[in-house]
């Protein structure tokens, strides 16, 4: 087999850029001591998964971009590079604060000379990129403005492997594989903007058919063309690649660039963006959705995991006591010892751990060199290297226990705590010593509770704190749902104080009122055709998801309001004129008999409502009733039905009196119907 050739032509060397820094603080306090991309996922460092993914794709040169803890990343990369035939370079940059900064740096260094694959340091995927690369290159040949191809994976909305807080809305054109619009979707939407998507209409000029998709996992694997870093340099306010770059490119007409997508559905791709995703992706790996990147493939050179039924992965040197129970979905690293009667399920345990007797570990991630003494309970948490849990400790769900923390005996660590041994350095004093907090780690423990730095006010968009919480491990959305209702009102109060946004916690009924009133007003003012007005009203009905009854309730009074009893004939506002002009509109809202009866009730109430005095009201009511009968908006039977019903006799005095006003008409109708019947009988008799 000939050795790997150093190809000169830039088209053939496939390059990739790994952004090894996530530029966020979701894994703190663990990431205060080491880089995010080096954290173990099922006992393999995160960035190894990315390297494997790129190796399978045939990448030959990789640039790893790191900011925090760059020395550790560099050391790891060097070690990895020894057993791999990809050339891996590390680029260290201390001042980068976001993806945008990293891209600008990349552009400044002029290292990329071809289309490249852009990934983050925490992507787990078994995807083969050949097809995507081919498509991208073909597109580039044809059209130089196609600057990026995003890889998206289809998954149902409630899927556990979707980042709960980082949803996305994509507007896609399937025929040209173009992405037309992008919008980030938050889990908890507090502003009106959060709940709406705004898209320019000019998109439809070129793309008559679009799909609006909320069922895609964005793995942030992009094939970028060589112009992308330059674009970042040009627009120096681009920070995030999706929210800023993609959104910006797509909404800007000047640049004229297009972004494409590639949808995959039967391969796995996800990013460990938060502790919640860490949990979900670990489970996916254990359940073998990421095959062949599974623990028993032993991708790391020194591993020797063996697979057992029940999705149990054990290295050969593990010592299990006779009575311990390893239930299912467990990964145990080398040289770990588990003592009597312990129960493990759904967990990952690293190398060289010592687990005592009667320990229950469920849904937890325990890294290397951890000691857990007898009778502990660990639920749904992450425990980092070197931690020690003394006897009878209970770790409740959602905890992050950082390196070397010692939790003293008989302590219960409360849910969602984050413990660290790093001292608090308020004055950036690196000599600060740790003051252990006995409330959290017990009397003999070592560690304190970590609090995030306060979010600075320079953010112009309001960050709903719930959106940050939602990314956390074991975060139970149902708890917050209940609180959400209560918070909703307070959120709206908060809104109305300072911001200029409209009243958004609006009663839908009132809104409908307003809409109809506005529509009618417009119709009256501009003298619309009945059909057009009816169309508008129907659309409103459908948009507000209401029914004809609701429409009638508003339209009938709306029309009647135009009537000025004192108006002169010829002004257009007399009863007859208004009815003649706008009556058919009411007719469009009335269909069957029930509608008709209902319409009459509304008429009754409306007239009474508009004019409290019976003498005025009847001037409105009687002609209207007559009109309805004349133009067959309401038929004889309905009028009789209305009259004879109990409901028409109820209500205010004016309403009851209005009913009486109708009496002569009713008598007339009944009379004529008898005549009709007689006539019919006669006719029948004659026929026979």
């Amino acid at each position, binding site marked *: 087999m000939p050795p790997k050739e150093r190809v000169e032509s830039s088209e053939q060397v496939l390059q990739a850029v790994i952004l090894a820094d996530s530029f966020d603080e979701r894994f703190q306090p663990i990431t205060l001591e080491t880089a995010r991309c080096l954290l173990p996922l099922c006992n393999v460092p995160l960035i190894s998964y990315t390297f494997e993914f790129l190796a399978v794709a045939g990448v030959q040169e990789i640039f790893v971009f790191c900011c925090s803890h760059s020395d550790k990343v560099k050391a790891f990369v060097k070690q990895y590079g020894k057993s791999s035939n990809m050339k891996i370079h590390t680029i260290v940059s201390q001042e980068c604060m976001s993806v945008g900064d990293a891209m600008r740096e990349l552009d400044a260094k002029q290292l990329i000379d071809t289309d490249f694959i852009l990934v983050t340091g925490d992507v787990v995927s078994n995807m083969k990129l050949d097809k995507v690369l081919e498509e991208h290159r073909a597109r580039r040949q044809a059209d130089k403005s196609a600057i990026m191809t995003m890889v998206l994976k289809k998954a149902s909305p409630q899927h556990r492997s979707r980042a709960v807080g980082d949803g996305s809305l994509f507007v896609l054109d399937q025929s040209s594989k173009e992405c037309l619009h992008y919008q980030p979707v938050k889990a908890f939407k507090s502003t009106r903007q959060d709940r709406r998507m705004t898209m320019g209409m000019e998109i439809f000029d070129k793309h008559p058919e679009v799909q609006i998709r909320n069922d895609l996992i964005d793995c942030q694997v992009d094939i970028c063309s060589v112009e992308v870093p330059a674009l970042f340099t040009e627009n120096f306010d681009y920070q995030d690649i999706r929210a800023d770059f993609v959104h910006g490119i797509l909404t800007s007409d000047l640049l004229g660039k297009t972004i494409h997508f590639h949808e995959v559905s039967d391969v796995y791709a996800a990013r460990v963006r938060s502790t919640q995703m860490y949990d979900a992706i670990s489970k996916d790996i254990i*359940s073998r959705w990421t095959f062949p990147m599974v623990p028993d493939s032993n991708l790391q050179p020194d591993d020797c995991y063996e697979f057992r039924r029940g999705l149990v992965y054990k290295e050969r040197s593990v010592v299990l006591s006779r009575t311990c129970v390893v239930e299912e979905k467990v990964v145990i690293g080398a040289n770990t010892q588990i003592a009597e009667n312990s129960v493990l399920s759904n967990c990952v345990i690293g190398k060289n751990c010592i687990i005592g007797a009667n320990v229950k570990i469920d849904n937890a991630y325990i890294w290397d060199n951890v000691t857990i003494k007898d009778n502990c309970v660990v639920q749904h948490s992450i425990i980092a290297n070197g931690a020690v849990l003394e006897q009878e400790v209970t770790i409740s769900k959602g905890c992050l226990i950082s390196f070397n923390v010692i939790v003293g005996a008989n302590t219960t660590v409360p849910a969602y705590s984050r413990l660290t041994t790093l001292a608090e350095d308020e004055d950036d004093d690196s000599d600060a010593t740790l003051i252990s907090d006995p409330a959290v780690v017990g009397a003999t423990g070592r560690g304190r509770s970590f609090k995030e730095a306060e979010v600075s006010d320079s953010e112009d968009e309001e960050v709903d704190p719930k959106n940050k919480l939602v990314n956390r491990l074991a975060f139970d959305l149902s708890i917050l749902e209940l609180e959400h209702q209560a918070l909703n009102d307070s959120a709206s109060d908060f809104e109305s104080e300072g911001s200029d946004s409209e009243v958004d916690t609006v009663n839908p009924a009132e809104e409908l009122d307003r809409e109809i009133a506005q529509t009618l007003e417009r119709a009256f003012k501009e003298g619309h055709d009945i059909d057009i007005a009816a169309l508008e009203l129907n659309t409103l009905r459908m948009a507000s998801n209401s029914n004809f009854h609701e429409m009638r309730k508003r339209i009938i009074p709306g029309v009647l309001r135009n009537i000025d009893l004192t108006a002169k004939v010829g002004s257009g506002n007399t009863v007859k004129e208004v009815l003649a002009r706008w009556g058919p509109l009411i007719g469009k809202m009335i269909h069957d008999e029930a509608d008709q009866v209902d319409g009459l009730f509304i008429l009754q109430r409306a007239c009474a409502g508009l004019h409290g005095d019976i003498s005025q009201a009847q001037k409105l009511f009687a002609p209207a009733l007559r009109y309805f009968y004349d133009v067959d908006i309401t038929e004889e039977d309905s009028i009789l039905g209305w009259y004879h019903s109990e409901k028409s006799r109820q209500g205010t005095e004016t309403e009851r009196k209005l009913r009486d006003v109708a009496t002569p008409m009713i008598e007339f109708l009944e009379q004529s119907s008898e005549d009709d019947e007689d006539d019919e009988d006669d006719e029948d008799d004659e026929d026979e």
Partner: protein
Amino acid sequence: MSKNNELVDDLVAKLKRRQLVGSSTVSQATLKLLIVVISKSNWTTCNQLVTIVKTVGQRLVQANPTELAVGNIVRRVLHVIREEFHEAESTISHKNQASTSEFHAAPLTTSSSMYNLLGETGSTPDKNLQFPSSLRSNIIQEIREIKDELENIYDNIKNQASLQIHSNEIIMTIGRSKTVEEFLKMAAVKRKFQVLVAESAPSYSGQEMALELSKAGIETTVIPDSAVFAVMSRVNKVILGTHAVLANGGLVAISGTHMMAAAAKHHSIPVVVCTGLYKLSPLYPYDEDTFNVQFNPDSVLGFEEGDLIDKVTVTNPYYDYVSPEFVNLFITNQGGHPPSYLYRLIVENYDPNDHSFDL
């Protein structure tokens, strides 16, 4: 040496990432690598060369323990090496007929290890003999012959086809096996018969097989895996391919094969397995799971079913273990043999010291 290491690393990586799968692809890649390693490394004695090859073999086997063909090829090569050295030694010792104080053991065609209990020690001491320079090229030549054998493996198997299949027979098979495909196509030249193919979900390789067979003009029917037992009574023979053959005559074959073989046994229908000898491994099955791989469950239950995947464990075992009592005949490139005869083939092709690559 470091170049050799690079090549070995490369193959190890490909095996681990499953970029190279399938017995024959893997065998060819291993052979190529071994030819390079043997021709480019320094060695003078048998033990040295054996150690070099065993080290490489150990790494390759650990990269993907279910690809048994890798280990088989390494063992074939080691056997060839030992034979060549033995021959070279005996030619030398014939030349120098020095009398020794030790009495010579009566010449045996094959060394019996039982005899070794009382006789000489098992491992031959490293004699610093002056081997002819042609030894290296002889070994390489022998290995190239193995390579040729691999490339022409189908021919020898195909030629037995018309003996095994008679006219108007109904043959049943499962999944996609190139060996069985060639076998049946060859038989179709002279005989007219029908084939039922079980589709072997979830990979549906049976459907591809049916397509290939029908292109060759064979009347083929695809049946779902669940219908195998129901249709078995109408079948005359079951012809199977396999991923590997174990030393006791058991098979590691595509999932669904065990069911087909058991159905055949129930109806007393002969089961014939077509396989090249490179798939014969001297290892024994410790249990049904030893040589099995669990694939991505996506083809069984889609990953999009978000609600279900949390509550349900989905497995997708790729292989089945079939006990030797279900198999009646093995058709190999060295003729047809019953399962009980396999031990002989193993003894002839592999050395007992090479069954494990531990040094």
